[in-house]
């Protein structure tokens, strides 16, 4: 293959096409299961499982972990965990087909990769905390909520984008 024909790995789908397909998946998910999609649920299940393995009595005594622990079944045996595994597989296939699979830290050339990692960690902590308080993240609360016109879904979506725009100024050096 000559270099001319080689695909540019940074060319992505038209966003309206991607959004249309994503909408179809949401319809299909609701049609089959009666529920929407999610992402942070799988990470919550992982945390519950780890804490339950490391300190079982502590997990049982904690009012939050104990909601998700049952004697018969592992907290990993939930719909959202299997769906998240699927997301990893699907993204791996798409990334592989487009030549995007590579170990790297992606960051603006103006900042160091350590700085990028610190802000990624901080962002993750905040997102994990917020997703528990709101009972769902952009997928579970906002997107799947909006698909059935949930008031909470719209509220969470407005809060996420509102606060992100309001604070974007303080993080601008990381991105532009």
């Amino acid at each position, binding site marked *: 293959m000559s270099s001319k024909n080689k695909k540019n790995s940074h060319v992505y789908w038209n966003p309206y096409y991607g959004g249309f397909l994503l909408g179809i998946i949401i319809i299909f998910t*609701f049609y089959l299961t009666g529920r929407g999609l999610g992402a*942070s649920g799988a990470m919550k299940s992982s945390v519950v499982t780890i804490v339950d393995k490391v300190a079982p009595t502590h997990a049982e005594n904690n009012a939050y972990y104990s909601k998700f622990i049952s004697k018969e079944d592992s907290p990993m045996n939930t719909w959202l965990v299997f769906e998240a595994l699927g997301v990893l597989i699907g993204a791996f296939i798409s990334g592989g087909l487009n030549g995007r699979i590579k170990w790297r830290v992606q960051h603006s050339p103006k900042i160091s990769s350590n700085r990028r990692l610190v802000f990624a960690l901080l962002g993750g902590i905040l997102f994990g905390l917020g*997703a528990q308080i709101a009972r769902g993240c952009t997928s579970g609360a906002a997107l799947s909520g909006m698909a059935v016109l949930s008031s909470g879904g719209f509220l969470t979506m407005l809060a996420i984008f509102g606060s992100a725009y309001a604070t974007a100024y303080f993080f601008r050096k990381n991105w532009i």
Partner: protein
Amino acid sequence: MGPLIPNGIIPIEWDSIIAIFIGIVFGFVLESSGFSSSRKLAGVFYGYDFAVLKVFFTAAAVSVIGLYYMDYLGYLDINQLYVHPTYLWGAIIGGVIMGVGFVSGGFCPGTSLCAVAIGKLDAWIYVGGIMIGVFLFSELYSFFEPIYNGYFLGNITLIDSFGWNPYWVIFIFSIIAIVAFAVSDMVRKKVKKVFY
């Protein structure tokens, strides 16, 4: 009539298998739309790339139109679908915290999984951060419990909250989305290009 699994038309044993297949398509679409790149995602907050806005609102409009249309045609009972519950202050405070996390980390949980799958180390750290965040919430649960369980308004929709006609809500939502797409294209032309 749908939803198929809760109504026993597809046996419950298929639930986990269907979950993986739906996940694969979900992950494939997100990654192909460029959602494994934090710099592309963050563009929506600085005006150099509006992919998040376009994908997100197109998906929301398509799904809500589709679901209500299937309900209208009798393929699906919209009242059987799970409606995300509304805890007034939980939704707002949680959302505000997530917004700061989004612009700081450049991912949301779903998109970070896509980036994890293609080897972005910043996404691995980000997912680790999410797990720390969940851990902190759980350990400090008694502190967060009042907003987590308080101000519960039920599994309500905009129809219940305001008494609006759902078809008008969907129509107006779609118009807002189209206007937002047009405005975002105008903004992007004015903003300095960022190459990533």
